[in-house]
């Protein structure tokens, strides 16, 4: 993660944020565009979840990893606190690896 990339992302994010208050008097976004924007955020996040849970970047990433993420997902779905989700997912994967599951 180069510093340049962080700074570009930071500058771009700031530009997006300040555009709203500055353009407010002149621009109204169609509802359809707003819906697409929020849907695209979810699409990107779930795609990254799928790729990083099931692959190592090229092929299947192993059962220990996949099962750990599924456990975390189920726990999150049952409204467990965020920390519990993370700890249980990591612990499941670590435990499975300890047992020799790839």
């Amino acid at each position, binding site marked *: 993660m180069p510093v340049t990339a962080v700074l570009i992302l930071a500058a771009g994010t700031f530009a*997006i944020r300040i555009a709203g*208050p500055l353009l*407010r008097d002149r621009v109204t976004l169609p509802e359809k565009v707003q*819906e697409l924007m929020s849907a695209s955020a979810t699409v990107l996040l779930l795609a*990254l979840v799928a790729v990083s849970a099931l*692959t190592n970047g090229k092929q299947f990433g192993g059962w*220990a990893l996949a099962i750990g993420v599924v456990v975390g997902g189920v726990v999150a779905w049952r409204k467990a606190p965020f920390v519990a989700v993370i700890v249980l997912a990591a612990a499941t994967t670590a435990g499975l690896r300890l047992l020799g599951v790839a």
Partner: protein
Amino acid sequence: MAAVALGAAVTGASFGAISVGSGLPWWMPVLMSVAIFAGGSQFMAVGIVAAGGSPAAAVVAGLVLNARHLPFGLAIGDVLGRSPLARVVGSHLLIDESTAFAMAQKDPARARAAYWACGVALFFSWNVGVLVGALAGQAIGDTATFGLDAAFPAAMLALTLPSLKDARTRNAALTGAAIALTTTPFLPAGVPVLLALVGLVAFRTKKKEEAPCPSPQS
């Protein structure tokens, strides 16, 4: 608001620890959190780079993710205050939570107070959390042994679940995830995640028929 701030601190600590676990120096998640201050895109960027993706893909994905702040800013507008300094500083504090707190207030003065209180509180709790997590993460050695590679997607899944309740968003997201998974063996890391946006063709905007005939008195 204290509960929200505490939640941000904990999420920040996870972000710090996971980032360091994925191989970044401790100050990198700290710099990201101060400068970007948008948790989802930070997780996203680190996740893409950790998976071997290019920084360019990470930046593009992060920006698309943060595009949702534009309608927030349009909706919230003058709540920040009209002076240039208030707009610059206030814009940096524009996040899901501060927007929600401000929108919940009808009175403009109270909305402004709520916005700034929430934004400032979360800025501090988030960054302190990230710093603590990053330093703690340094103490952890081999990340695969501790299953930290599972913590990352699990954290993002937890962030995503509430939006998946909406059936149209869920269809688009599942289509996108399928596209990303099937293209992963053939494309450079990071690109499949961006390609998932094609899944938006499965997104149907809400039909207007929910109010079939506007009644005269409304």
